[in-house]
């Protein structure tokens, strides 16, 4: 297992070096070192950190809900963030002058949207309490639907250019990356991930069922709180900076389980590392496939993720 983990680290570094190689290559051709440092490097880092966020929150939420189909979208965080962002995209230009928050207004609003959804979830489940995870999933679905209504209304009243902005945002992109936004995001997300990983053994025990986990010394309520809040933070920030990116949170943990087992001690870091790797590669592809234009990266991950997921399902059915 350790060797597999180191292999994954290597794979991640490998793809990193590919993108850095690409970066160096571009540098030599354009000779605008400084500009590229300001654009390419934060972009690759952002892609990595967003991939890691989606991967680890997918893995930990699947563990928490004991459901292989759970992903960050399920508890409504992504939808909440999307709602927050839509408010800014559609209403922002007419109501909020640019100079107030500058570049932070879109991510901040998205984070507030995600926080609002988590707060609602917290309220309806009485502090992520003992009603069981099915109840929480149902509340998540309902909150999700509410957020979609909000987005729908905003879409309906938006002008043509705002609509275009909305559509591209929902397809995801790392194009807006710059150090002012990326640096604080990286710090917060890394800390949250590092605080989450020590709880992997408790997630293992939870697989026996909530009563059994409690009897083995797991404070189930606080575990739920921790996992959900952590996921909300990392996914909320990620979505706010890059838009909606589908399938990574769902598929990456499955792939990691096939490769190295279901132990969360391995699964959480592996999903973070592989999520980062896959996202950096996807972003690289989105940049070079139809140069000089760019594919929305969320489109790319879904286009690759969905068939891969189908293949996975058929494979599992055969064995």
């Amino acid at each position, binding site marked *: 297992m350790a060797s597999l983990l180191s292999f994954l680290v290597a794979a991640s570094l490998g793809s990193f070096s590919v993108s850095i190689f690409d970066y160096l290559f571009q540098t030599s051709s354009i000779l605008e070192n400084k500009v590229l440092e300001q654009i390419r490097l934060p972009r690759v880092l952002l892609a990595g950190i967003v991939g890691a966020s989606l991967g680890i929150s997918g893995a930990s939420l699947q563990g928490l809900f*004991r459901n292989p189909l759970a992903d960050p979208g399920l508890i409504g965080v992504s939808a909440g963030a999307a709602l927050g962002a839509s408010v800014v995209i559609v209403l922002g230009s007419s109501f909020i002058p640019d100079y107030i928050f500058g570049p932070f207004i879109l991510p901040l609003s998205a984070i507030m949207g995600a926080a609002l959804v988590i707060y609602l979830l917290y309220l309806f489940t009485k502090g992520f309490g003992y009603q069981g995870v099915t109840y929480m999933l149902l509340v998540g679905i309902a909150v999700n639907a509410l957020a979609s209504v909000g987005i729908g209304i905003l879409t309906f009243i938006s002008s043509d250019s705002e609509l275009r902005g909305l559509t591209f945002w929902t397809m995801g992109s790392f194009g807006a990356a710059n150090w002012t936004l990326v640096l604080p995001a990286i710090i917060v997300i890394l800390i949250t991930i590092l605080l989450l990983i020590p709880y992997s053994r408790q997630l293992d025990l939870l*697989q*026996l069922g909530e009563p059994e986990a*409690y*009897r*083995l*010394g797991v404070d189930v309520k606080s575990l739920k709180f921790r996992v959900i809040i952590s996921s909300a933070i990392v996914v909320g920030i990620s979505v706010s900076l890059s838009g909606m990116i589908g399938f990574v949170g769902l598929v990456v943990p499955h792939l990691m389980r096939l490769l190295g087992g*279901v132990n969360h001690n391995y699964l959480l870091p592996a999903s973070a590392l592989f999520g980062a790797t896959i996202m950096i590669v996807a972003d690289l592809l989105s940049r070079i496939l139809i140069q000089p234009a760019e594919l929305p990266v969320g489109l790319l991950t879904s286009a690759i993720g969905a068939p891969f997921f189908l293949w996975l399902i058929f494979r599992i059915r055969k064995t």
Partner: protein
Amino acid sequence: MTIKLSNISYQVNDLVILNDVSLEIKNGEVLSLVGPNGAGKSTLLNIMTGDLEPTNGCVRYEKYNLKDLDIIDRSFYRGVMSQAQQIVFDFSVKEIIEMGWIEKGVSSYSNDFSKAVKEISSLCDLENLLERKFNRLSGGEQRRVHFARTLLQLWRPSNSKDPIFMLLDEPTANLDLYYEIKLMEIIKMKANEGVGVFLIMHDLNLAAKYSNRIALMSDGSLIQVDTPINILDPSLLKRIYNLDMSVDKATMKVSYF
């Protein structure tokens, strides 16, 4: 050293599930709880483990009130096996057993971990299944794995004086005849080593053979707690189970058909 339930009542809205139950489980004894479906046996077990808070009454582990013990301490004093839930992801048998190595155990005796796992897998005849996927095992085999996990939770070095308790809800369900007896023998052995054992049983014959005392429960109340020979009384059993039974006092066997 005991687990002591004093005047436990449990009520959901107006429905009385347990009514003034007092019971004591001593270290070194096997106490079986028997009674018809819906008598409140599992609820009583859940109150004993701390899963449920009683409406009235209190549970004490030794000198501690259960309410004052934190979740990790509770897991140190008592191991529980109940009707297991389905496990979604594909853990190996070894991984499931190792989940019994609780936080407090890990820090106290971490050097003994592999020894303990080995000892217990061999005791439960699971050595050949360790690398298999848990979800591919039969119901009875899965049950034995959970039992081994409970044993690992309560594993102590032989010189330990910790008061520990094993609370098992129908441990022999799904087991074949060989492992039914084998598991009861292990339970008896643990009791002889000083563990306090509380069992919920349906098989009166097994309960009679392996218990020091039997508690008979019906409609949320304890009817009688006594030695097997006194509990296996045809008229008493007829009243509780509404079934004609004959008891052979010499072999302590109950026949009901």
